[in-house]
């Protein structure tokens, strides 16, 4: 591994780490604008993280070692997930370490850890959140897999880099299987990032919350890691969507300069995605928890239909 390759790998890890809170701040800011508020500014998540890191961590007296270990593990999983997704370039040293299926496995690992940590204290909120998270997860995970399978049938590979290159190098056309997969992915994207129709990131009402219920017992630096991991997750899903459906502009060489060139197109796409996400959240109402399985089953079925269309039509 040459120095430039290593450097570009480091850049592609540090970029999500630095930009993830910004994306979250942007989404929140647009949400505020859409509801006629001024909003805290897009840098608010950074201030939040800085504040939380400086605070003492208050931990429940019944917390076990798993509870303290979990934030680091979840943060690590999310960071690695970002390193695997071809965000800026398709030719990176770590790209071969994991393909699409392994990426889903990694996200599932983080989910299992966050659910277990939520169950550790043994309060009603934590266990409730953990149960709901696993409920969302067990339907969203296969749905995401079917989306990735449609894409890998198209690219004849499960390696994300190859999928991206296959889409970039083909004639620009609307592929029916990718349309279905894109619809399924949008639903999974909302559900997995605790966004409005499924969960609400800005509520602490016990009847509705999922993600917030799980991290209720965290504070100080542990909470900061959890929040940062959540931002990284949103960033990872966004860049995954870009890689699968809008990959034009992603560099194909592993040099720092080519990475810098692909940064503006990434930023542009993320700005649009963030704005659309805020729009969707503003215009939709939260589902009852028992409508959520139907929502995700729709995503799952759309994913399966995507695979079937590919096999039927060959596109």
């Amino acid at each position: 591994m040459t120095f430039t390759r290593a450097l570009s790998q480091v850049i592609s890890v540090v970029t999500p780490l630095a930009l993830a809170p910004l994306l979250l701040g942007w989404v929140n800011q647009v949400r505020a604008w859409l509801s006629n508020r001024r909003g805290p500014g897009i840098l608010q998540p950074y201030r939040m993280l800085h504040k939380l890191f400086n605070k003492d961590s208050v931990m429940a007296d019944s917390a076990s070692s798993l509870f303290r270990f979990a934030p680091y593990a979840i943060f690590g999983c999310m960071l690695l997930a970002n390193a695997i997704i071809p965000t800026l370039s398709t030719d990176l040293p770590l790209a071969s370490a994991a393909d699409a299926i392994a990426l889903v496995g990694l996200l599932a690992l983080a989910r299992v850890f966050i659910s277990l940590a939520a169950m550790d204290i043994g309060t009603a909120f934590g266990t409730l959140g953990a149960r709901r998270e696993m409920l969302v997860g067990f339907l969203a995970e296969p749905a995401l897999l079917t989306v990735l399978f449609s894409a890998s049938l198209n690219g004849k590979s499960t390696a994300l880099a190859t999928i991206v290159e296959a889409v970039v190098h083909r004639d620009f056309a609307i592929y029916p299987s990718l349309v279905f997969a894109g619809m399924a992915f949008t639903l999974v994207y909302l559900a997995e990032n605790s966004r409005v129709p499924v969960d609400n990131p800005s509520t602490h009402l016990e009847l509705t919350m999922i993600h917030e219920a799980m991290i209720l017992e965290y504070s100080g630096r542990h909470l900061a890691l959890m929040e940062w991991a959540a931002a990284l997750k949103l960033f990872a899903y966004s860049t995954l969507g870009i890689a699968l459906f809008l990959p034009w502009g992603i560099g194909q060489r592993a040099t720092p300069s080519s990475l810098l060139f692909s940064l503006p197109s990434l930023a542009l796409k993320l700005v649009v995605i963030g704005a659309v996400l805020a729009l969707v959240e503003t215009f939709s109402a939260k589902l009852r928890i028992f409508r959520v399985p139907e929502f995700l089953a729709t995503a799952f079925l759309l994913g399966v239909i995507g695979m079937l269309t590919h096999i039927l039509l060959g596109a």
Partner: protein
Amino acid sequence: MLNMMAIDWVLWIIGAWIALGLLGIIALHKFALVARVFFPLGAVGGLILAYAAAQALVSGRVESKQLALGLPSLPFHLRLDALSAFFLVIIGLASFGISLFAAGYFRNGEGTAPGLLCLEFHFFLASMALVLLADDAYAFMVAWESMALTSYFLVTANHRLPKIRAAGFLYLLIAHIGAIAILLCFGVLQANTGDYTFANMRAQNLSTFWASAAFLLAIFGFGAKAGILPLHIWLPEAHPAAPSPVSALMSGVMLKMAIYGLLRVCFDLLHLHIWWWGVLMLALGLITAIFGVVFAAVQVEMKRLLAYSSIENIGLLFAAMGLGLLFRSYGMNALAALALTACLYHVAGHAFFKSLLFLTTGSVLHATGERNLGRLGGLIRFMPWVAWLALIGVLASSGLPPFSGFVSEWLLLQSFLFTPGLPQPFLNMLIPIATASIALTAALAGYAMVKFFGVIFLGQPREEKLSQAHDAGKFEKIGMGWLAILSIGLGVAPNWVLHLIDPVTKGLVGEGIARNASANGWWLVTPTSIARASYGPLYFLFGVMAACAVAFVLVRLFYHARLRRSAPWGGGHSWRNSRMQDTAEGYGQPIRQIFEPFFHLERHLPKPEDTEPEYSVAVSDKFWEGIYMPIARATEYVSVKVGRLQQGRISIYLLYSFITLLVILLLVPTARR
């Protein structure tokens, strides 16, 4: 002595296990001797067995032998080829951990005498090894039946409880129905030659009809042992009844003997492969997998939960085998090898993580006396060793990277994604549905396993006495630790395992994937080419660990690390108790609601006027009502009718004999003509 052939080593170990068992009879009530000396000796035997079999596997020799046992002129034909060697390695490695655990687990004065347990346990191990060596139907059936019998006695170790006797009987019944089918299958395979050696069966060319008959009999017979739908009902009864090391051995190792038998019959003894065999097996496997995992998610008893999870894993193995068969029937041997590799990888992975999980339930049971999830909780504080080891088993079982379950799941999904090459369009259409069901099964397995671990080990203790729970003993820790190391090792070093699987698939379908898989370095698995798919578990392990470490160090460096302890937030209320946590039933409730048609539910809802309202819900298997109870009722009905013949008077019986004689005499002239 050291340059003996591998098959001799295996036979010596089998002999040693039998000898240890017989010594157990002599030391019937000497608990310390049996537990602390005999069981560890048996464990060492397992390790030697694994080593010898691995040598045979790597060298690629096929060794055979005849033992003049049994009836005159009907010797035991024995043969050690790659397939049996691979399964012997699994028996050896898994039994090392389980036997060590058993050395610390069995207590004096519980049910069967310790010496007798030692006899049954080691005979069980020996008969499983002999099943793998058998090269004729006669030796196979003898070993198969002694495996069933010894495990029956082990299941009923605590035979004073009527419930356990009933569970044992159910197990024995289904095992024997299966054995009859296997016997008939061998009968078909020898094609009227009267020669029951496997060598002869391999030489026969059966017609499509008879080959299909043999295949269906094999599916039924071995499926009964493996627990395929609808013959699975004995698993959730027998596993909770058996002592934990025995459940571990049965679920982790014995179920795999059925997989071995199917592989032997379908890929070695039968030469004909018809596409619908593969489809049938695939469909059976997928239905079993989804059914098993949905039921696992709603169980409230920890060993039942694991038993249903075993059903799920057997389903996945069947699906992988079915896919292999499908590819094989179209002559796509390289892809068949990939599917079979996924199957064999999962055989090994499941053997270790499921044994580990059953052993942890044993430790929990001993420490608390409770097997109901609703009365456990918070045990990570009192038994950290067991909890962290169980976590490894749970992560492996949920198919998460970088543990063993993920590698096999990954290989299986890869082989599914290669299918669009199949020549029949409608088969290609089935594949996305099959792939989606595998993905759903894997995700649900995570749900069930989080429930298992979270409810037992996390949260508040749900009973007062749980705070008295003690961690596992020395032997138990070593046994579980060994299986945990194997689960991690299988997850992070897949290429070494693939090299062991390679000779097996080469023997079965003539191809192997190991050379391709390690073409880009030993740390990276690439089943076909690096552009197509790759997975490097070590990157995963080190990536996550490095990120954890960097985050940890940076937080320490730039900020402080002060920590305060206080009571958890109780929503503004000052009182809080362990009853406010989610229960096992509550955790399964979403699954019960979503998959309601799967279950037979019995709800008891309180009425408004009840002074002491009670709520209960019981989930049971629809197959009992749907299939087994009608059969049982029909049997009873017929036997009542037949019972009328038995009047208990000599004169009536003489009349029967007379009528029989008359009928026979009438038939004789017809037969002569």
